[in-house]
């Protein structure tokens, strides 16, 4: 029994040394509708075959923190075990009337707005529990929004490593260069979470990010 425990201990220690295996909380942060859940779903589907949450064209579809534990990713012989934390989009304003444009009834829209405001508060609370964060931005939108700057500023203040993802590169309006110009100190990876475009480069950057922890 003792021999088996010792053997398992050494196996665990040495396997971590040689494969670089880590177990870390990886947060997905960003404004609403940037594709945080789509990216988390893509990663989950790639490595576990399951999804983490529902996606929608209506903003604030994710209104509660969603998790996926023990997602094991392998890249060039190295392994990462991640706890994926998909967070509600951070916004400075939430107006239920915006949801009415999507054909929602008033009561339903008001309830969605109420849940969305709690979601924003939760997202910010969870920031300090992250080991690393992927900031997901919509590459078709202006990156100079104060929400983006505030999220990244908070990660810097907490010394949490950041990777910026420019999502929706499959769309004509996408401008990765604009995001790179807005955040020149960070690595920016352009992907399409919906179609799985450029995920190889994303995983490579993810392993680089894990090294900074």
């Amino acid at each position: 029994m003792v021999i088996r425990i010792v053997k398992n201990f050494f196996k665990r220690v040495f396997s971590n040394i040689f494969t670089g295996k880590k177990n870390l909380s990886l947060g997905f942060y960003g404004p609403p509708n940037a594709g945080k859940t789509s990216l988390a779903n893509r990663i989950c589907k790639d490595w576990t075959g399951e999804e983490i949450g529902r996606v929608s064209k209506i903003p604030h579809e994710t209104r509660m923190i969603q998790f996926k534990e023990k997602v094991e990713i392998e890249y060039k012989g190295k392994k990462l075990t991640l706890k994926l934390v998909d967070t509600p989009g951070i916004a400075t304003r939430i107006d239920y009337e915006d949801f009415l444009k999507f054909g929602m009834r008033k009561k339903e829209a008001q309830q969605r707005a109420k849940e969305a405001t709690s979601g924003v508060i939760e997202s910010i609370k969870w920031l300090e529990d992250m080991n690393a964060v992927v900031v997901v931005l919509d590459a078709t939108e202006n990156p100079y929004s104060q929400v983006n700057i505030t999220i990244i500023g908070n990660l810097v203040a907490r010394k949490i490593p950041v990777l910026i993802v420019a999502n929706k590169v499959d769309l004509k309006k996408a401008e990765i260069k604009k995001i790179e110009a807005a955040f020149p100190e960070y690595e920016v990876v352009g992907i399409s979470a919906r179609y799985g475009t450029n995920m190889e480069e994303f995983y490579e950057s993810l392993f680089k990010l894990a090294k900074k922890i």
Partner: protein
Amino acid sequence: MSTKDRKLTLSFIPYSDIEKLDSMKRVKKILDVVLKDRIVILQGRLEATEEASLIQSTMALVGRIKNFRGVELAVIQGKNEDNDFMSKVRIRMARALVGDRDALTIIGPAAVVKEIKKDPSKIDLMLKR
């Protein structure tokens, strides 16, 4: 003023007014003005963590205060890229000593400000009719 005209009030908060306040009081001072449907022009900027607290406090008020839907927020700051090394050091030291005063923070209630469009050199304030 005709009945169709709509008044827009800008409230200027000099940095000296918030300098000695703790983070919670700073956020409260700003929100107190915003809740009067005024646009705040703050000299300087809040810390990143204070900006996050401002967003949290704002979200906590949405739905609790009638017709309050949140805020629009933007910070403009001059770029110091062309400065030499010593100038950059001086700027950083000054910020550490007296706070970040060479920025302007604009915070408007969402009921008044539809959107703040920002690019590095300008800010467009889109107002609600």
